[in-house]
Structure formats: C-alpha cells, structure tokens
C-alpha cells in the first residue's frame, strides 16, 4: 500500500454531502493526497465524483466533515483565494473573449503587469500547442482545441492543485489518447497535484498514480492502478475495472492465503480469500480472463482443475478470446496471447482449465 506522505496536501476527513437533506450523495469520504500526486476518481455516473470536486473547489459546502488544503481547513477560504485550477466538464471558456483573453483572465484579476501577462499567455498556449489560435473565439475552435485551451487556462496562473472533471469526455478516441498523454506529460513536467475525474477506466489506469473507485458515494478502493487491477478489494471494483469472470459459490475450507470454494454447480476451485473469513460463507470468485490456463504444463501443482466446453473462438489480433461454458456459466472467457504456436481452440471441444490460486479472488457476494 502507498502510505500517504507525512503531511497530506489535500485531505478529506469524514466528509458527507447531501443536496436535499434526504439522501447522502457522498457518504463518509476519507482521502489523503500527497503533493504532486495524480489521483483519479473513477466511478459510474451519479456516484458523487463531480460533487467531491465542487466541494474541493468551493462551489458546494460539505454537509459534514472537513476538507483541508495544505493542512488548513478550506471551508473559510472563498473559491477565488484557493488557488485551484479547474477544467470543467464543458470547458467553460468565456465565449465573449478570445483565446488569449481567456488565458489572460486569471493573470489580469491577480493584477499581473501587462507585459508579464502576454509572455505567460504565449508560453501557456505554446505548451498546449495552440500558439497560433490566440486571436480566435472559443466558438471557432474544435472540441479538442477548446479542451487544450481550457487546460492552458487552468494552468497559466501556476496553481499547485488542478481539478479536471471528465475533461476528455467529448473527444474521439484518437484525440483522447493524445490528450491523455499531454496531460500526463504536463503533470510530470510542472509537478502539480491533479485530481482527475473520469468514468473511462482505461484512462484512469494509464494516467494515475492512484485511482479512487467511487460507487454509491463511497470510495470502494483507493490504490495504484496495478493493485486495483490485480487485487480488487471487493466485487464492485473487480467488476468495474477490466474484464472479469465471476463464479458464485460457498467457502468449503479456508487457510491463511488459500480458500477452497464449492461452486453452485458442485465443482471445487481454489482461490485467495480477500474478504471472506469463515467456512460456509457465500462468495463470488473473480478471475481475469488472461490468467486462465488450459495447458496442463502451466497448471499450478495441486490446484483444482475444472471442466470447460468451448463455445466460441474470437480472433482479436493481438490475442484470442475463447468463450466457454464453465460451471453452468456460458460467459466464461479465456484470453491468450497470440504467439507463435498458440493453439486455437475449436468450438465443441471439452478440456480442463485451471488457474493459480492467487489469481482467483474470493470476494464478498454483491
């Protein structure tokens, strides 16, 4: 686990938020961020991500709990004194100003002398490769260009903390990937702290130092991308991040790092207990498709095997996806790398499959 630095830069302490006094949109949020971190909030629509950003930026007040910025409670600081750069979901570029005027705005309201202002605006525009567009109005830019201007505007006054609310949501795949790269690059170069909101999990995994998976107003898991992917802490995270096969069963036997699970259909498999503790508990075992093996030489000695029937073989270029029937489920997927000599399994074939017990995680049933 990444232990947060001694003095967190951003801190949510038992924060709750309700808009209407009836339902909690954010329930008990605890989060600590060291300086310079790139943290992504990932979660389904309506899970409270924007609300968290708005509380941090000062446009909503927390109903309960405290938010601290650099050790100081933020509640008493008005938004314009927080020094937080923000990129809005809809860009929010001022339509009546040119691109250069938009960028000069934060410098202007801070009373920067005109000559410095121009130089910094030019630098910021060059940084996002928009140097030639200073005289245009936002309406005359494409979505990706607006995005870059919004980014430059949030960075031009050199805030230490930048919040980005689904900034790439409206872009096509290619531009999105390009912008992901650019944002990441800027983060590394400027050493800023970034809170990034998205519901694109690939984006979250590729860009972040840590990812906070939101659901139902709570952080379900807060971990670096690899840990999140490989060691999901509950079935929501397992299901939300990446592809995953789920098998339901009950715990038959349990040791320190190994659980034997009897599936509903009667088969026995091995798994790592994550949040099951007792024999007889219901559980949901999650296995990543790429960790499923069908060649006996790769089986873990002593691990249980289970019978599978191939239903479909899908050629994906870099990999093969094999859909099989396992323990009564038709949607069990195995993924193998397309390498020299890789076997293509034809439909109808029956075979034994297995996996390393570490790769099957026995989670709480949802």
């Amino acid at each position: 686990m990444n232990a947060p630095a001694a003095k967190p830069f951003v801190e949510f302490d038992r924060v709750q938020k309700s808009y209407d006094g009836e339902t909690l949109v954010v329930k008990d949020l605890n989060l600590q961020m060291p300086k310079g971190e790139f943290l992504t909030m990932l979660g389904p629509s309506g899970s409270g991500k924007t609300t968290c950003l708005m509380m941090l930026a000062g446009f909503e007040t927390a109903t309960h709990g405290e938010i601290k910025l650099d050790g100081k409670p933020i509640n008493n600081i008005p938004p314009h004194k927080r020094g937080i750069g923000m990129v809005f979901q809809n860009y929010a570029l001022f339509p009546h100003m040119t691109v250069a005027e938009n960028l000069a705005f934060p410098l202007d309201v801070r009373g920067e002398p005109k000559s410095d202002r121009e130089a910094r605006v030019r630098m910021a525009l060059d940084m996002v490769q928009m140097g030639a567009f200073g005289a245009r109005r936002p309406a005359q830019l494409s979505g990706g260009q607006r995005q870059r201007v919004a980014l430059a505007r949030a960075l031009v006054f050199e805030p230490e903390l930048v919040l980005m609310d689904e900034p790439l949501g409206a872009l096509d795949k290619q531009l999105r990937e390009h912008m992901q790269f650019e944002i990441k690059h800027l983060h590394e170069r400027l050493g800023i702290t970034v809170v990034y909101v998205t519901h694109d999990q690939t984006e979250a995994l590729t860009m972040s130092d840590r990812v906070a998976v939101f659901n139902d107003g709570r952080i379900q898991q807060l971990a670096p991308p690899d840990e999140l992917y490989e060691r999901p802490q509950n079935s929501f995270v397992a299901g939300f991040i990446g592809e995953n096969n789920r098998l339901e069963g009950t715990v038959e036997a349990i040791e320190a790092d190994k659980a034997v699970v009897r599936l509903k259909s009667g088969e026995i498999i091995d798994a790592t207990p994550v949040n099951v503790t007792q024999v007889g508990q219901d559980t949901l075992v999650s296995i990543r498709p790429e960790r499923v093996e069908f060649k006996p030489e790769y089986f873990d000695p002593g691990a249980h095997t289970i019978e599978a029937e191939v239903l479909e073989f899908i050629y994906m270029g870099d990999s093969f996806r094999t859909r099989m029937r396992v323990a009564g489920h038709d949607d069990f997927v195995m993924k193998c790398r397309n390498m020299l000599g890789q076997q293509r399994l034809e439909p109808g074939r029956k075979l034994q499959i297995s996996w390393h017990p570490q790769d099957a995680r026995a989670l709480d049933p949802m």
Partner: protein
Amino acid sequence: MTDAVAAAAPTTRATDGRLTTADGKPLKAALARAQARNKRRAFFLVVPLLLFVVVTFLVPIGQMLSMSVNNSAFYSWKDRDTGDTIPLMVDLRGWFNENEPGTEPDEAAYAALAAGLAHARDIKAIGQIGTRINYEVSGTRSLFTGTSRKAERMEPPYKEAILDADEEWADPEIWAAMRSASKAFTLDFYLAALDRTRDADGNIVKVDEERAVYILLFQRTFVLSALITLMTLILGFPIAHLLATLPLRHSNLLMILVLLPFWTSLLVRTTSWIVLLQSQGVVNDLWVASGLIDDGNRLQMIYNRTGTIIAMTHILLPFMVLPLYSVMRPIDPSYVRAARSLGATSWTAFRRVYLPQTVPGIGAGGLLVFILAVGYYITPALVGGSSGQLISNLIAFHMQKSLNWSLAAALASLLLGAVLLLYWLYDRLVGIDNLKLG
C-alpha cells in the same frame, strides 16, 4: 442497356460541361422549377399576414408621412357631397409663381386674392383656408372670414378695397404665409414641430420663447424614457437573474408574478397607482402614520413627473425582464464558477464574465422599453399632470383637439425618425445581431 444506364444515372453531362437531367434539360433550371412550386405554396401561407401588415402598418405610416408634408388646405377643397376636388386660390398661386419671394404685393396680387376669397366663400371653403394660415400667423382666421364676406362686392382697385376691409392685409408675414401655403408640399409642419417658423423674408427663425413647447417636450420624453429604461433595468436585472437560476418550481411562481401586470388592464393598474400615490393615498398615509413626514407635508407623487416615472416603470418592467431572462437562462453557471476558480472575486466574475453575456438581453430589453416609453400615451395622460406629459400626449392633442393633423403627423414622423436613428445607433454600437428578444 442504355435505359439501364439512364435510370442509374439520371444526370448526364451535356457537351458544354453543365449538368443536365436525363431528358437533357439543364439541372439548375429543373431544380429552380421544382423549388418554385414549394416557394409559391409557402408564399401563399404568408400572404394574409403580408396583407395585414401592409394594410395596418405600412399604409398608415405612409399616410402619416404624406400628411405631415400635406399642404393642400390652402389650394384645394374636397366637396363633401360630390366628392370632387376643387382648386382654390388659383390666380394667387399663379402670382406667387411668377414673383420672387419678398416682392411687394401689387394690384394684380390683390385682385387674385379678392377673387380667391370670393370663390372660397362661395363654396364654403373659406374656414379651411383661414385655419391653414392661422397655423402660421395666429389670429388670422377671422381676417379671412371677415374679408371674404366683402370680397364679392369689391371693385377695382382691389388693393385699396382689401386694405379698406382690413388693414392687416398689409402685413408681409401673412403674404409670406400664403406663399408657403401655396406650395405643393411643405416642410412648415416640421419647422413648427421643431419650434421654428418663417419670417416675412422666408428665413427660418425660432418662435417666441413662450410658444416654444415641442423641443422641450421631445427632450423631456427622451430623458424620461431613458430614466424609465434605466429603472426597469436596475429593477429587472436581479429578478431576471433569480428567475434564470431558481429551480423551476419556484421560478414558475416568480414568473407568474412578473407576468401578472400583463394580465391586468392597463387602466386598472394606472388607477391603482393613483390610489397608492395621491396625497391622501396609501403611501402618504403610511408615511404620515409612521412619523416619517408630518401631515402638512404630504408628498406630491402623482399628477406630475414622478407619477409618470413610477407608473411607467411598473408597466414596462416585464418588457425588460423577459428578454433578460431569455438571455440569462442558457448561461451555464460553470462560467462564473470558472471565473471564480481562476481567481476572480464574485464582483469581478459578474462584471467581466456574466454581464457581457447578458448584453444582448440588456440591449433588447432596453430598446424595447425605450421605444415603448417614447410613444407611451395613456399613463402620462392619466397620472402625468402637466409636468409629466410626453410628446405623444401632444400628438393626441393635435389629433383630437386642435385638429392640426399635419402637425400631429410631423411630430409623429419626427418621433419615428428618432426611434429609427436610435435603432441605427444601437446597430453601430452593439450590433443588431446582438439582440435577443426571446
């Protein structure tokens, strides 16, 4: 085989390179013909509206403009019974044509005048002639009727005979007035509407101080209208903002309150202002009761300029609120939030980010309220007293009381011109496309 090709490709390229349809007609012509029918059909749908606008808007405005330069009262008479138009003062007009302005009227001129007066009296047109000249030189109406009674029996030399009948005929001002009244068209009504007149030599001069009312009234109308526009803006802006930002449930209620004045009769609203503001009215009573003013010093808030301003601000407020609201509604709150996060105080964010985006609404509302206020008639007439009268009240006076329609038309045309000028100015300063009415 060829049929198949023609069907698959109904357009072919003629030898000159232009596209043609399958049967060889030029494609552009075919397209125009196909669209013409649709256009014609669409046009028929708007014909009633077009006719309505022409009949109720363009024709009256045209008539007003022609009325304002109409000079025919002195030289033509419309017979009520037969409907014929009979020329008057034919000889005198001839004499004016032949002689320079400022020429001393000679025997021929007086002879023509005597003949004209006799003829006019004969067909009962003398009143109209007298009234016309009376517009220019006041107190001359009786001169015409009086002399015309004797004109029939006059003998040469006519100059003596006429001067015998009334000395005043020697006044060169009367002759100058008659000369200008004989022209086919005149701008004299415009001169009068601008407090100007012609002296005996035909030069344009200001009228006497005590008779000069129109320019003062124009000024007052524009100043008061500007003030009322400003007041509606100051009062309407926060309401419109509230309307645009409140949740729909509450904003609907507020909207009803804003529109309420529209659903009440103008007269009812105006009279209720009288009830509220008169010196024995509700507001004064409250102030006296609360000890703010004592009973002897009740404030005069109605039947004067204050009354006009208050009542008209109230009546015109919705015309400001609605355009503002329609502009503010789609302004995303994230703009102001962005400005705040970029370091602007709430005032700076309002001034530099929110306000500029509402300019089309301010322009539309301001223009609408101002134009309505400039032409407002009923409210100033009811609550304006004498110091709260506007130019439209004077136009109405000339239409209904003094029956000087031409002057009324000239005043109205000037008002129309001023409004158009304003429109042009707005276009120059803000841009007419920067106008959002709803």
